[in-house]
Structure formats: C-alpha cells, structure tokens
C-alpha cells in the first residue's frame, strides 16, 4: 500500500534528516563571526552534516517510494514521553526544590508509574538508595548536592 504524501514526510528518518539540516544550518551562522582559522573545523563539520543529512533524506525517501514501511520510533509513545518528562522534572526539582527531597519522591514515583507497585519494595529501595547516597556523599565526602533555589541561600 503506497504511503500518502503526508506520512512520507513524517517518517522518523526523514524528520531526523530535516532536523539535522535545520540545526546544522542554524549553527553555521555564528561561524561568520569567527576568524577563518577558528571557523574552519566547525564549518567543515556543519557542512558535512548538511550534505549527509540530504543523503539520509534521499535514501529514506527512496525507501518510502519503494514501499518500505518505516519502523516506528517506539511502540509505546506515551510511556516514552512520560519517561522523558519525569526525568526532566526530576532534574528541575533537584535544582529548585533540593536533591534529597526530589530523589526520595522520584524513585518510588517513577517505579510505581511504570509498573512496579509493591509498597514495601518501593520503601526499601528508596531508603537504601537515598541513605547510601547520603552516607557516602554527604556524610563521607562532604559533597554538596543542590539544596533548592526556591529556598534561597
């Protein structure tokens, strides 16, 4: 079954090729401000990326016209997006709320959300991980982790 024009353009590799092309072109602009010798290697790499992304695009479109289906990036997009969001919010929480609180919340939250639902197991795991980190890094090595920007200094 031949693909519609629209789905030809949303094939993952095609999208990636277009993405690489756009980003590499964007990065080319700042190279104008550099000395020629400073700009040489980065510009060469960016132009390389531009050319290669065109090759990638053509190869993928050729596959598309040959009727090859593109493999989807993931079978469970919701889960992948959820996982990414959780990881990013964990980093933000560490930054703004503080490392220990965020970690103590994140470990059980992520594990529970993604399917591990034993309350005792979650509690034990959280206590062991946070406790070990505290004992080694804070107590043992007096290493500071983010305390949370929200609370000021």
């Amino acid at each position, binding site marked *: 079954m031949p693909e519609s024009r629209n789905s030809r353009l949303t094939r*993952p*590799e095609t999208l*990636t090729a277009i993405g*690489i092309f756009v980003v590499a072109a964007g*990065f080319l602009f*700042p190279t104008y401000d*550099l*000395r020629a*010798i*400073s700009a040489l*290697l*980065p510009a060469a*790499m*960016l132009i*390389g*990326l531009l050319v*290669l*992304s065109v*090759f*990638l695009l053509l*190869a993928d479109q050729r596959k598309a016209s040959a009727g090859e289906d593109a493999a989807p*990036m*993931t*079978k*469970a997009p919701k*889960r*992948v997006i959820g*996982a*990414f969001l959780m*990881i*990013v919010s*964990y*980093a933000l929480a*560490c*930054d703004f709320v503080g*490392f220990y609180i965020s*970690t103590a919340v*994140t*470990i*059980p*939250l*992520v*594990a*529970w*959300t*993604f*399917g*591990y639902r034993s309350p005792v*197991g*979650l509690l034990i*795991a959280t206590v062991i*991980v946070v406790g070990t*980190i505290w004992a080694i*890094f804070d107590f043992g*090595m*007096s*290493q*500071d*982790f*983010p305390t949370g920007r929200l609370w000021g200094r």
Partner: protein
Amino acid sequence: MYSDLLHALPDVFAWTNFAAVVIGVIAGIVVGAMPGLSATMAISVLVPFTFGLEPLVALGLMAGIYNGAMYGGAIPAVLLRIPGTPAAVATTFDGYPMAQKGEGGFALQVAVVSSSIGGIASAFALMLLAPPLSKVTLLFGPSEVFWVAVFGLASIIFLLGGNPVKGLISACFGVFVSVIGSDPIYGNDRFTFGQLEMLDGINIVILLVGLYALPPVIDLLETPLKTDGVNSSKLGTQSLWKALPRMKSYWKTWLRGSLLGIWIGILPGAGGSMAAFMSYNEARRTSKHPETWGEGEPEGVAAAEVANNADTASALIPALTLGIPGTAVAAVMLGGLLVHGLQPGPMLFRDNPDVVFGFMWQFLFGAILLVLLGGSLATNSFARLLNLPRPLLGSVIIVLMLIGVYSIHGRMFDVYLMLGFGAIGWVMDRLKFPLPPVVLGLILGGFAEENLRLALRIGRGDPMVLFQNWTSLILVALTVAVVVGPTLKKRFIDSRKKA
C-alpha cells in the same frame, strides 16, 4: 633508582596504606559499575577530602579507584550496554552480545583478567621505564601529536556500522561538539552562547552519560512488563579456574593491547578510550575470523579491556615527570599529588622517592587485587542488581546519572546538558546511528585541531612543519596503512577468488 623502588616497598604494606588500595579498588569497581558515575568524578570528589590524609593513603585510594573503575566500567557495558566509563565503550561491542547469548559471566571474567593484565603491564612500565618513556613523550610535539590524533580519527571508519551515512553523521556530530568552548589558540568563544559553563568545552562524561545511559533507561521504562529483570542477568558463570584455560589464546591480543595502551598513555591527552578502540580494531584486523567480531567474540572484550587498563599507570609517566597528564583521570590525580606537595618533574623521584615509588607499587597491587576482588564482586552482586524490577532499576539509574554528572563540577547546568544529549542519544539509538564515532570524534576532534594549529604557528604557517621528522612520517605511514590496508587486502582476496 631500582633500590629506591625496593626501599619504598615496606611502607606500602603498612596496613593503612594497603587497606587504602583495597578500599580504592572496591570503590572503583562500584563507581565504574554504576551507570552515570565515572572514575573522573570519583577522584575529583575525593581530592579535596585527601588533604587530611597521609600521602600514601590518599594516593593508594586513587590508584585503587583508577584501576577498579577501568574494569568496573565493563560491568554495565556487558550487562546493560551502558559503558560505565568512557573507556568501556569498546567493551560493549562484543560484551553485550555475549551477555545476550547467556555468556555474560564469561565476558566479565575475560574483562577482569584482561584488565588486570593490562594494569600489571602498565604498572611495570611505570615502575621500571618511567624516565626513558618520558623521553619518548618529548619526541611528540604538536605536529606529531596531531598525527596521533589523525591516526585515532582514521579508526572511525571501522566504527561506522552498516550505514556509512549515519556513521559519518555521528562522527561529524562528535567532532562538532568537540569544538564547542573557547578557541584553543585565541580563547574567543565558539558556540557557547554566552554560557560560561560551556567555555571549557563539553566534558566527555556529560556526553557519554547522556548518549549511552539515557536510552537504556527509557527502554527499561518503556517495556517494564517483564518484572523478572533483564535477559542478560542469566550469566552462566563458571569458576574462574575453569574459565582461564579458554583465555589462553588471547595472549597475542593481551600483549598488543598492553603495548598500545602503554603507548597511548604516555602521549598527552588521548587516553583510555582511544587505546581501547585501537586495540579492538587491531585485534579484529589480525583475527583469523573477523566475521564473529561484534556478535559476541570474547577476544573483543579482552582487546578493549586490556588496553583501557594498560594506560592507567602509564598515563602517570608524563604526569609525574612532565606535569602533563595522559588521561582525564590522570589530570585529576595530578591535583591529588599537588595537594601533598608532590610537584611533577625530574626532582620528584629524588625528593620523595618513598611516596612516588610507593604509589607505583600501589598501582601494581591495585591491578593484581582486581582479579581477586573484581571477579566475585561483579558476578555476585552486580548481576543480582539486574534482577531488580525494570522500573525500579530505571529510576535508580536516573538518580545515579544526575549524581555522576552534577558532581564533576558541582553544577546543574551540566545535568541539563546531559539530558539534551540524552534526547539526541535516544533518537540516534532508535534510528541505529552508531554512537562510538561520536565519542571518538569528541575526544580527538578538538585535540587534533588544537595541535594542528599549534604546529602551524610553530611553522609560521608553513604546512611542511607537519612532515618534518621521522616520528611524523611514521605516523602518517601507519595511518595510511590502517585506512588503505584492509581495502587493498579485500581487493587482493577478491581478485584471487575470481582467478
């Protein structure tokens, strides 16, 4: 000098000093084995802490951690395809396929024995040949180092994978990332967008954690239904004594990998990852059955692991004699030496022989202890960690990634950067872009550029400065041989087949 070496020995066996090495090795294996944590990070966290310690205790810890971590990195590389340290990237090539075939236990045994052999060879090089080898380092000025970097970059062509376009995109991406930061000559900003945090360039650990650790974490969370752990947790371990005879035939690989590792170690700047890649490529090139490589060939694990440990002690040769560390970890360790008033230079060996030679012994014992501690620790505890329910394992790795990246410089900026690379890494992983070219490009791209430009300045713009002496010419010849050799060989074989 050799009498100094013996004189330093009793101190090493003082129980605190020896305990430091043992603790260091164990800590190093653990740190290396935790996805996200790296040797560089562990030692930089340790350095301020060592101010209050006796020199040999502090140095013993560092020697142990370095040795331990270089092997520890192999554990998640084999079991999860997450290299625990940058130098373990090449270990994933055959280690992970072995684990999937249920041979993870043997892969780890090959790794620990090879690591130990590499470490012992390197420690002997440091103990017995430091002064002459430091003369070798002096032969390598900017133009020679440039050719070393080109030699390393040339090996990217063997890492491109099935689709050369994708492989080259990976390589270009890696090299491009390597130029971010201040210009090596003029110091002006390149692509930092005003962020001071990016002026020093992108630390390899940040990129590595993002590219290699985040995608598997997403996998763990994406298909969490199998709550019985990951496939590769079935290790199929047998006792080390039964496994050893199977490794007999690797002696050539071990010898070659050790020499390569020691050589790369004494050159400033390149480090363990390059040694491991090159050793792997060379071993595959000379193998009688190269087609099995990448599909779970134990010798591939041996080649990578022997080389990434063989540069540990040898990286300290230029660090101790010239003040120029051979690897990123050695650079951090140099700080630990300065803290104890140990100034690198020719006088170091005269002024503080007991400490310096004691430190060398500690490297040797660290490497030997690796077999004793590493084998059982890895198979008994870490493999069991993989039996954790997948969502839980994923969430714990997320925490470790944050700690590992945050602790390098103590800033959240790096964590966000890591997450950015993680997103890129996930796309690359799913679309089967090879990751090793990115790593090698990042390590060697900017390094090659810096040395090329220094060389051109020395030659006042005349490119002939690059071909001025035998060292350069030999390196050029080697590069050509490595690049063109396999193609010619293939043609030759093909033509004979036709005939």
